[in-house]
């Protein structure tokens, strides 16, 4: 055989967005390269230039309907930085609660709807059955719990955000409306139920995880840097500083939100619509860094809620710290979920949450500012420059999936090497690659400000001709 070949997987299913994987083979039929890439784009970074600052938060949330609240919050934080506005404690608490609602609604869907089917069914199961709807038919109870949890997240968003998706209440200066006593009571009641469901989900998750661990371990453990928000060594989503640790777990750097762009840089490639982000100090490949649930576990030394703290301890005992196994993302996501439910409950128990001082006056200014929150998929940063007319001059968004992009690609390449020898493709490649990608729960919509549908693996030779296409 002459020349290089490529394998493509498309569309990638059960992920948020449209992806494709291409594996390039060398002249001997061994893996020379592998790419996971996004095939759609909408171009928010371009068409929002000139937009009035006051419209940015609710327009920018349209980048992603799955984690819209995280985008809104990062956006208002960036604008508040430019306006030099300090919001009230009440507004801060309500915003944190909004973010918990976001984590709960996102993680409950990701766990139950996207990853659970991988744990639930064996890999020999008919692919058309490997989905949540089949689980719901077999065990309606699981479906009910998934939906109850999601509904709790949605209720928080509707009550405080005033819409479940693309919230409107978070504005520069705080929140448009305070929380009513009655609403607080209702949410608190639901929060208690949600905590109980999450505990069960964690048990179920751990049980299925233990059963499959030997298989999961094979899905790679790429040793990289990790990054997450942290506040006094504890897990934090809304406030705090950004900490980066090295693959050994030592603190590499710790910096404030406003310094984010000095530490993280991005690059585009011609083969994907998603950009790559990495640690500036180390450069593109040495500076590969991961964000998201596992990164949060690796970086946080403790969690300030009782059950999640116990789970974090157990997690660290079982897998060490830092841990690198890719599929631990799924496990770590459940601890996130536990934290979010507990934190929501604690916030809702706070008597001062219904205070009416949710809004302060803002004074528009020109300048540059960065807003950072921990989104469901990791550290999310929005940087805006506003001109003296209060319009957007420049914008830079670094989104979790862009940061994880490099690690996803390295992992996919490792998997490809394991399954492809001398031009021969062993069965199971498709499944393994999808599981890796799914573990990262990449949001292609965010990374490209776009979305699509599923996965194709394409094998190409060095002339670029497709030699083989794998799809389900």
């Amino acid at each position, binding site marked *: 055989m002459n020349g290089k070949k490529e394998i493509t997987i498309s569309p990638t*299913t*059960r992920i*948020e967005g*449209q992806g*494709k994987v291409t594996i390039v083979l060398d002249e001997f039929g061994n893996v020379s390269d592998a790419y996971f890439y996004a*095939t*759609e*784009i*909408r*171009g928010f970074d*371009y*068409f*929002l230039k*000139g*937009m*009035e600052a*006051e*419209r940015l938060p*609710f*327009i920018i949330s*349209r*980048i*992603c*309907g*799955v984690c*819209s609240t995280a985008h809104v919050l990062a956006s208002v934080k960036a604008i508040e930085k430019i306006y030099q506005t300090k919001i009230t404690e009440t507004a801060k608490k309500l915003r944190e609660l909004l973010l918990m609602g976001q984590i709960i*609604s996102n993680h409950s*869907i990701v766990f139950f*709807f996207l990853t659970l089917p991988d744990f639930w069914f064996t890999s020999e199961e008919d692919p*058309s059955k*490997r*989905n*949540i*709807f089949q689980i*719901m038919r077999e065990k309606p109870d699981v*479906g009910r719990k998934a*939906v*109850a949890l999601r*509904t709790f997240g949605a209720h928080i968003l509707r009550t405080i955000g*005033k819409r479940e*998706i*693309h919230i*409107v*209440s978070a*504005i520069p*200066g705080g929140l448009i*409306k305070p929380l009513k006593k009655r609403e607080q009571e209702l949410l608190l009641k639901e929060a208690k139920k949600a905590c109980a469901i999450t505990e069960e989900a964690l048990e179920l998750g751990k049980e299925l995880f233990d059963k499959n661990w030997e298989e999961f371990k094979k899905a790679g453990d790429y040793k990289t840097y990790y990054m997450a928000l942290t506040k006094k060594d504890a897990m934090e989503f809304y406030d705090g500083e950004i900490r980066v640790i090295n693959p050994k777990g030592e603190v590499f750097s710790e910096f404030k939100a406003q310094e984010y762009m000095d530490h993280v840089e991005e690059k*585009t490639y*011609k*083969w*994907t*619509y998603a950009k790559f982000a990495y640690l500036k100090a180390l450069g593109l490949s040495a500076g590969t860094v991961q964000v998201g649930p596992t990164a949060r576990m690796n970086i946080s030394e403790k969690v300030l809620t009782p059950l999640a703290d116990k789970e974090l301890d157990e997690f660290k005992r079982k897998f060490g710290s830092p841990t690198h196994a890719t599929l631990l993302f799924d496990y770590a996501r459940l601890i996130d979920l536990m934290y979010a439910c507990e934190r929501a409950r604690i916030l809702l128990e706070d008597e001062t949450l219904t205070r009416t001082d949710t*809004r302060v006056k803002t004074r528009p200014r020109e300048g540059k500012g960065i807003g950072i929150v921990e989104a469901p998929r990791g550290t999310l940063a929005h940087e805006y420059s506003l001109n003296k007319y209060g319009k957007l001059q420049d914008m830079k968004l670094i989104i979790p999936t862009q940061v994880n992009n490099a690690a996803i690609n390295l992992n996919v390449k490792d998997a490809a090497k394991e399954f492809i020898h001398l031009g021969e493709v062993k069965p199971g490649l498709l499944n393994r690659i999808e599981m890796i990608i799914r573990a990262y729960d990449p949001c292609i*919509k965010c990374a490209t400000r776009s*979305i*699509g*549908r*599923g996965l194709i693996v394409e094998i190409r030779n060095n002339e670029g001709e497709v030699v083989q296409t794998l*799809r*389900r």
Partner: protein
Amino acid sequence: MKVNIISLTCCAGCVSSFLNAGEAFLEILSENFRIVYSPTFIDLKEIPKVDLAIVEGGVRTEEDEKLIREVRAKSRLLVALGICATHGGITSLGDIFSVKKFLEKEYYLSERTQLPELKDLMYPIGNFVDVDYYIPGCPPMPFLIIHALKSIVSEKQPLHHKSIVCTECNRKIIPAKLDRLHGIYEKEATPEICLVSQGFICLGSLTRDGCGAPCPRVGFTCFGCRGPADSLMYRSRDMYAFLVKVISRRTGVPEEKIRAELYKTPFIFHTFIFSRFDRFKARERII
């Protein structure tokens, strides 16, 4: 009924909104509503023949067009879910500038690449295929989606909302005497009085009802995410002029001044109703 759920270029918020329906979502899933294809939830790579296809997102790439044509050919009924599918949505803002040019530069699209080619504009799906029902919204509220799907499943005609958001808003319209308009965050809205009367640019008077007016009710201006109401869907109707008249009447600010103010902020209401739209064909089918 067998159901396909398809995502074109969008943010996935519309399908997320469907999931937010909670109990009603569980209730609708039955033999009468069996989701058989959805890349987000199901590992099936080939699009099957079905009774109903729910499509979110618009057509931004050549691949989107190919897909929507295939989806249409394989389903008896087709629902356009959300403003991107029905009108073009937020991505249509890219139509104002030549985004394609920017992107070509940044992503080296001129070089040989396997990425799908971009279209010149963002198109609603109605530009390429026949649509049986349109459910505009960004995203449509869960109850609206459930109502529409339940009706469709039981072969009934869903409610056709043709009025404006003001009919669902509880604020009182009181003509005022203001000297200028205000930005959304400039001052706090007084409860119970129409936002336009207070000088805010609220698009409720142009926008189709059916959402329950969640935004203006809490003091946030309507930004037109349900698209234009029936009365504005004639080609002869100039939405811009209409808005200037409404605002002038409710605020007492002279039309000239309002027109100047609105021209300063080009994003105001083109945001969600910019792309081409076959108004006559669609009107009766909007939910």
